């Protein structure tokens, strides 16, 4: 008898299959999912939900067939009645009791936790802002520097200088929000390499966020936490448009653009993307 067939025979039993599936599901949810790209640690309550779902699925599977159900119950029945398994029976009873006690103790002694940081990542922008006393209509606004195709290289160079002298400590050399000051802030600085930030936004939205910074966020953007400075205090309008050019050039993302509609209608945003 070789090993694989031994394992197969061992695993043929529906009870062992059920236990195996539960253990596997737990490993995947707790240890495998967090290491997947773009994923995060699964909260305990969600782990419980997953495990209950898997358990229901397993029970449906084992009870689906009369013979399988019977075989599934055999080891449980044996532990409950067999005189020779008296020790196992006592251990299972004691173990379950201790587990319930521990869970109940954990429930009654919950300590104070930080309140959840419910934050709207891309709150709706205003239609118009005042930039150093000058009214700027954001709706339908494109980066004005893009019209000057012959000066684009100079604007990009200026944008690069502005980025390295101002944005780099937080947003980082790779524009991925991991600058050397980033760990000091919460929320973390925006990651421009991610497809969920500037790739999803019009340049006018980015202009608004740069010009008005954290203090200019609406309430749902938790303005009290954002460390983004109010850049209109530091940079000119042209410097901000230049650094926006640089952000898209350096990451390779294309800004979301406004779809021009006939007179009478407004303009709508239309999709951006990676080149």
């Amino acid at each position: 008898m070789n090993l694989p067939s031994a394992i197969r025979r061992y695993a043929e039993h529906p009870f062992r299959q059920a236990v195996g599936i539960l253990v596997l599901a737990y490993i995947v949810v707790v240890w495998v999912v967090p290491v997947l790209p773009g994923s995060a640690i699964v909260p305990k309550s969600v782990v419980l939900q997953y495990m209950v779902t898997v358990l229901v699925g397993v029970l449906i599977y084992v009870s689906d067939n009369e013979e399988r159900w019977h075989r599934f119950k055999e080891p449980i029945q044996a532990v409950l009645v067999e005189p020779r398994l008296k020790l196992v029976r006592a251990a299972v009873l004691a173990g379950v009791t201790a587990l319930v006690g521990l869970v109940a103790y954990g429930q009654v002694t919950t300590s104070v936790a930080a309140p959840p940081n419910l934050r709207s990542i891309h709150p709706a922008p205003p239609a118009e802002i005042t930039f150093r006393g000058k009214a700027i209509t954001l709706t339908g606004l494109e980066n004005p520097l893009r019209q000057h195709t012959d000066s684009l290289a100079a604007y990009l160079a200026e944008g690069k200088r502005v980025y390295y002298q101002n944005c780099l400590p937080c947003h980082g050399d790779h524009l991925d929000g991991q600058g050397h000051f980033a760990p000091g802030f919460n929320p973390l600085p925006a990651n421009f390499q991610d497809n969920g930030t500037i790739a999803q936004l019009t340049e006018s939205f980015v202009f608004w966020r740069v010009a008005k910074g954290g203090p200019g966020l609406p309430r749902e953007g938790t303005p009290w936490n954002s460390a983004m400075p109010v850049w209109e205090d530091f940079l000119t309008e042209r410097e901000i448009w230049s650094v926006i050019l640089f952000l898209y050039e350096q990451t390779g993302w294309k800004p979301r653009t406004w779809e021009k509609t006939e007179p009478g209608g407004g303009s709508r945003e239309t999709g951006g993307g990676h080149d």
Partner: protein
Amino acid sequence: MIDVGAAVALIVMLPSPASRLPMQDTTRGKAVYVKWCAGCHGDTGAGDGVAAAHMLPRPRNFTGGLYKIRTTASGQLPTDADLLRAIDEGLPGSAMPGWKGRLSDAERRSVLAYIKTFSSFFADTSQHVVPLKFSSPPGGGTGADALKVGRQFYDSIGCRKCHGDQGRGDGPSAPTLKDDADFPIFAADLHQNWRFRGGGAVEDIYRRLRTGLDGTPMPSFADLIDQKFLTDQELWRLAQYVRSLSPAAPPEVRDVVHAPQIPGTVPASPDDSTWARVARYWFPLVGQVIHKSRWFAPAVSGVWVQAVHDGKRLALRVSWDDRTESPDTAWLKFEQRILQTVAGDDSGSPPPQAEPWPDQLAVQFPRRLPEGSGGMERPYFLMGGATDPVYQWRWISRPRHAFAGLARGIERFDTLPGAPAGQATYDRGEWRLVLTRALATPDTANEVQLEAGRAIPLAFFAWDGSSGEHGSRMAVSTWYFLALDRPTPPGVFISPVLAMLVTLGLGLVVVRRAQRRGGARHIS
């Protein structure tokens, strides 16, 4: 030592980099360099990119071929593997990030080849660069005896002259230190190994002792082994001693400082034995780069915080590493060099004159605990605003005292009559400060009422006067939380015990029933 004059002459005489290294195609490396590196290191590799003046330490100047982190002997060029390690892993404690995972293998290798073209020393192929052979850590563990040997050599070979008696970078020579380019340089704080440029493992420390950090005042101690002043094993002991000064693992940032309730009264002294039994929490601080005038070179990289309460008063202990008990005139020249090196927002005007500023610390709370929307709304983290002030405890090193007040932004601070009690100790590179205040105060409109069982927002700000820090030039943190824990009530055990009894009872019933049925089946 490399003759700098000769090196300059060599560079001038030599033709362009491309023709010097005809074997290697550096076109691709140049493209990567220009896109990702030149902003700090400069187009010509001279460490003078547009961001350079906003950094301390400054970006590496590649034209001199001089590198701190090597596996080669002092005065030698680094190996390709040394350079690649710096590119891949970055240099902790500086602005240099790790590029592994950000640039492809091919890109990192090609940029390495390009960086070498900046210095003629690499073109000289007659110089064969070989890494030193490093021994493995000796046996015998890192117990008290081993560390004692390490400490003996720490004193006898002069480490303490720069790094200080306790290793916090506060030695008597520390205020005189500069690197080969005349930039001010700090003796490393040996209690923060996660910020060592070459890595914080004992092996890394041993290697730095063998190779030295070229271009800085940190020498190689290899010659002391040759002179039989100490053995290789004793150098390992020294590395083990240095490693033992930092925590076993880099501090993890947790959101909530838990203040346990203690019997008796809270300790008012920073050196009370109570503090040895209370968990400490690390909060990183970074430069204030949000409001004018910004500060890109914060001296305090973080604070350790502990808290206890006795049901009536809270005691908060904040300790942080600071090389000077400011104001300290011995550091005025060093302060001037920092102010000349690090760009500020007033770049048109000459750098400010060094002044003997004091050290300061601020602990910030909202005026009232947040209500509604899940208790998450707070004043602006950077010292509140004109219409939404924050309540702060402030402490200043000279004249040494603590006070409280309302901050309405960085510029405006209005002192309140009620002050926390403050006691501070300066001990060889470390401030230990305890601030105590009653949980409840009469001025409920302005002074936060510290309630047990609530998440109380708090934030920290620190100034090192001898680094020129005052006003908006400071290190800042974001909002964290303080929680005053209640003592475990005796009733806490009732419900778990009840739950266990019910479980056990049900279990026994299930077993009894199964056995009865099983028995019946056997009979039939």
